[in-house]
């Protein structure tokens, strides 16, 4: 046997959608995390309720790499339909745990096989007819635990944690795991080098959270009170978590809730409700994905022109619904930035970690209120729907920033002298009043493009141009208030720019290729982008879309003499970008020392 490989391996479970395999995968993930070992799960699932193939990748590295691995060390082959293809993905020397009934004729000889009669074991050992199919998945958890040496105590923790709200389910699941665990002990001897050993130093103080969960917690702590949404993968879970948290944290007994979460009839209505609520003074949001963003285009333009605060989450996925709606992408960034007709341009927050999903979701409401405009939070399926290891979120130390809102007292002090769209402070941000303000001068008429400083109707050319210039000034003020890019530099010649979930792959790639890094976290882009490019001979913009949308935005933000320094690295197959997709092009083009 070769040298042992400890805590550095990728497990891939190939199963059937809707069979309960996700629960088994999560138990395994939580058990390994409980051993102090960093985990990075990626769920690759179809647009389907039951029957189509699904894969769960559980990456384990001592450093805590969070990006998808492009290599499989241990395959759990549970789906006969994909078995032959799945086998090809295993690296030489890897392990294949498979259903004994699968044909092994003409299979590879460079991997270790553990053939387990899962179906027979399930039939013989699991008494409940109704639960057999689901619990059969737990048997493989037991086998994997046997192969890798996961202690029973960790498995118990994984099951208990997974079934926090269903303690009755704990024992039957543990029993099923035991079936697999015992089968491995009784029938196999270890033939492969892979092992898991408890460790310390990386996971302490960390938790496992999905980006959509994090965003829901952020919205809750940011004081959202009106949420309107329409179901769409991969965004739905954000609002579903909010509903669950609202029931727990925003209910006054059984009679009142300090939040309203409305399932609208479509995305048009969803964003319309949120804009209506924002206009009337509530902190309001909607959450959707690309096709929903398309439907929100008209209303987003109205909110931009009429200057109404609203927070819009876009959990990006691949385009139209028919095809790959359950695969990840970063291809909405260009669309969202200028969404709608006319001279619209929006504030866009670009969280790159789950911690930022929490923080940016929370702070988005401050930005929206402060700048009286739609604020988009651009996450994606990978970030939003997978569990990520993260430091515990910090309690907010700042109160809400409700922006420039005039109260009855303010209006009395001003003797009613105010104008909704007059720029008193020179920052482009004007004062507003809310319906219900008990002063005769409080009311004004809100409409889209045609209004003067006093919100009176006009189609006057000068008034329109003046207003557009002020809106540009407002955007410029906002640009400096949004999260600044994060730079990590050590005087390299080559730099790299990325945003969002690509961050994880960049962090890992930089262990191999020596490059400086600037992670942008908001649009419009910070001046720091041009400064970063000016400090480097060449800068690669890495992103998960076909046409290099951020690459285009970066070049537009540069003075002409810097434009040629920028190059583009793109990954767009629907799978989360692995580090290799950055290392390979950079190694080829730069011959940077590997």
């Amino acid at each position, binding site marked *: 046997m070769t040298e042992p490989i400890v805590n550095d391996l990728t497990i891939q479970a190939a199963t059937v959608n809707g069979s309960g395999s996700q629960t088994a995968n999560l138990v395994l993930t939580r058990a390994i995390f409980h051993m102090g070992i960093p985990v990075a799960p990626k769920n690759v699932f179809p647009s389907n309720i039951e029957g189509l193939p699904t894969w769960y990748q559980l990456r384990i590295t001592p450093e805590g790499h969070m990006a998808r691995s492009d290599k499989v060390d241990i395959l759990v082959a549970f789906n006969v339909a994909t078995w032959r293809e799945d086998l090809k993905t295993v690296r030489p020397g890897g392990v294949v745990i498979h259903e004994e009934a699968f044909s092994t004729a003409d299979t590879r000889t460079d991997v270790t096989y553990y053939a387990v009669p899962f179906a027979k074991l399930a039939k013989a050992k699991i008494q409940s007819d109704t639960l057999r199919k689901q619990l059969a998945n737990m048997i493989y958890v037991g086998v994997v635990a046997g192969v890798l040496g996961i202690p029973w105590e960790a498995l118990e923790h994984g099951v208990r944690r997974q079934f*926090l709200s269903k303690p009755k389910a704990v024992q039957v699941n543990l029993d099923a795991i035991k079936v697999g665990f015992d089968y491995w002990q009784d029938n196999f001897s270890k033939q492969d080098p892979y092992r898991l050993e408890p460790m310390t130093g990386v996971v302490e103080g960390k*938790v*496992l959270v999905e980006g959509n969960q994090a965003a829901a*917690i952020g919205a*809750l*702590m940011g*004081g*959202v*009170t009106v949420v*309107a949404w329409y179901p769409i993968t991969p965004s739905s879970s954000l609002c579903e978590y909010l509903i669950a948290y609202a029931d727990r*944290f*925003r*209910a*006054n007994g059984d*009679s*009142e*809730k*300090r939040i*309203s979460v*409305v399932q*609208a*009839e*479509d995305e*048009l*209505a*969803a964003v*319309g*409700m*949120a*804009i*209506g*609520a924002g*206009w*009337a*003074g*509530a902190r*309001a949001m909607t959450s959707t994905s690309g096709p929903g963003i398309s439907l929100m285009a008209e*209303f987003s333009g*109205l909110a931009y022109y009429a200057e109404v605060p609203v927070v819009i989450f876009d959990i990006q996925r691949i385009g139209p619904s028919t095809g790959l709606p359950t695969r990840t992408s970063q291809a909405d960034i260009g669309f969202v930035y200028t969404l709608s007709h006319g001279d619209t341009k929006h504030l866009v927050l670009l969280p790159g970690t789950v911690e930022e999903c929490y923080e940016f979701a929370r702070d988005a409401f401050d930005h929206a209120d402060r700048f009286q405009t739609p604020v988009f939070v651009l996450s994606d399926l990978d970030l939003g729907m997978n569990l990520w290891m993260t430091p*515990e*979120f910090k*309690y*907010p130390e700042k*109160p*809400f920033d409700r922006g420039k809102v005039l109260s009855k007292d303010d209006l009395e002090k001003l003797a009613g002298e105010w104008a909704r769209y007059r720029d008193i402070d020179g920052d482009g941000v004007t004062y507003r*009043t*809310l*319906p*219900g303000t*008990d002063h*005769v*001068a*409080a*009311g004004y*008429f*809100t*409409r*889209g493009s045609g209004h003067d400083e006093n919100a*009176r*109707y006009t189609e006057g050319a000068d008034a329109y141009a003046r207003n557009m210039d002020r809106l540009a000034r407002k955007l410029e003020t906002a640009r400096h208030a949004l999260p600044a890019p994060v730079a990590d530099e050590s005087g390299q010649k080559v730099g790299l720019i990325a945003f969002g979930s690509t961050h994880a792959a960049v962090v890992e790639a930089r262990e191999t290729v020596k490059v400086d890094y600037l992670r942008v976290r908001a649009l419009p882009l910070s001046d720091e982008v041009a400064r970063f490019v000016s400090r480097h001979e060449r800068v690669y913009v890495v992103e998960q879309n076909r046409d290099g949308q951020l690459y285009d935005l970066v070049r537009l933000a540069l003075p002409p003499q810097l434009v040629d320094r920028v190059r583009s690295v793109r990954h767009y197959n629907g799978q989360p970008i692995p580090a290799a997709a950055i290392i390979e092009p950079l190694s080829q083009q730069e011959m940077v020392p590997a």
Partner: protein
Amino acid sequence: MSATVNHVGLPRDAYKGAATTLCAGCGHNSITNHMIKALYELGVEPHMLAKMSGIGCSSKTPAYFVESAHGFNGVHGRMPALTTGAHLANRQLIMLGVSGDGDTASIGLGQFMHLIRRNVDCTYIIEDNGTYGLTKGQFSATADLGSVQKKGAVNTFQPIDPCAVALALGCSFVARSFSGDGKQVVPLIKAAIAHRGTAILDIISPCVTFNDHDGSTKSYSWVKDHEESIADVSFIPFFEEVHVDYEPGTVRDVRLHDGSHIVLKKLGEDHDPTDRRAAIRVIEEGRAEGHLVTGLLYVDTEMNDFATTEQIPARPLKDMGEEDLRLSREDFAQFMSEFA
């Protein structure tokens, strides 16, 4: 000598708005005047009124009454969504939506129906002229089959009747009237505002420029000749005493949630406004006989409105702060520990 004031101490002028920019003689201008009268007599506090609208001639009119109130001229057909959101933010506001037949029955039909389905507490006035005015006279979806356009084109499609749709959906308040019939429109507006839930008021409002000719079923002369009121409507607000001086059996009295009364005086056949099937039948019979049936068609005073169903507190959500909305430091720490 002081000017006459209403029960909140405001003169009628406090309910006026900017000068209209619609055509002289437009039915919508009459409705604006009825609105001013109704709001003044009801004593609605202007700062608590939210005037909502979509796009079209009708949707411009909120600028022409109660200038000191907040108004929101939104996007085409989406007034219901804006209204729903604003109402959730502050359920103390009086939500008054103004829409048209294109805004409601074509581009906004989905939102119209879902507003009704939720029973959002608001008044929804349709200024219904069967035509697209601002875009110069195309048929709208409420135009009757066979009705003739100004230049002679004949409408070949069945109309969508907003009242029939509302009734089919179980809307809690459905009424129809005619812009030229102030005696009926004013009490219906008051009743719609006092009603708790979605109140649909379809007001036939002739377009003098594009749809007031022979062959149109939305012209002044056609409506005058074919209007058939099912009952005389009067409205007695909660702050006034009820005087009933009718013969027994000739009136129906509907008590609303806020203590106001709608008093309906029988005209021809007795119509029970709490019988939804009867309301549908009255509309269908009117249509078959070539009449425009007006009046209060249906009201359900018991149905829960949306904010009640949603458990929204009386204190506006917009006024809630960190202490109401954020987890405490201890709860947050406990919550985070559950993710370990």
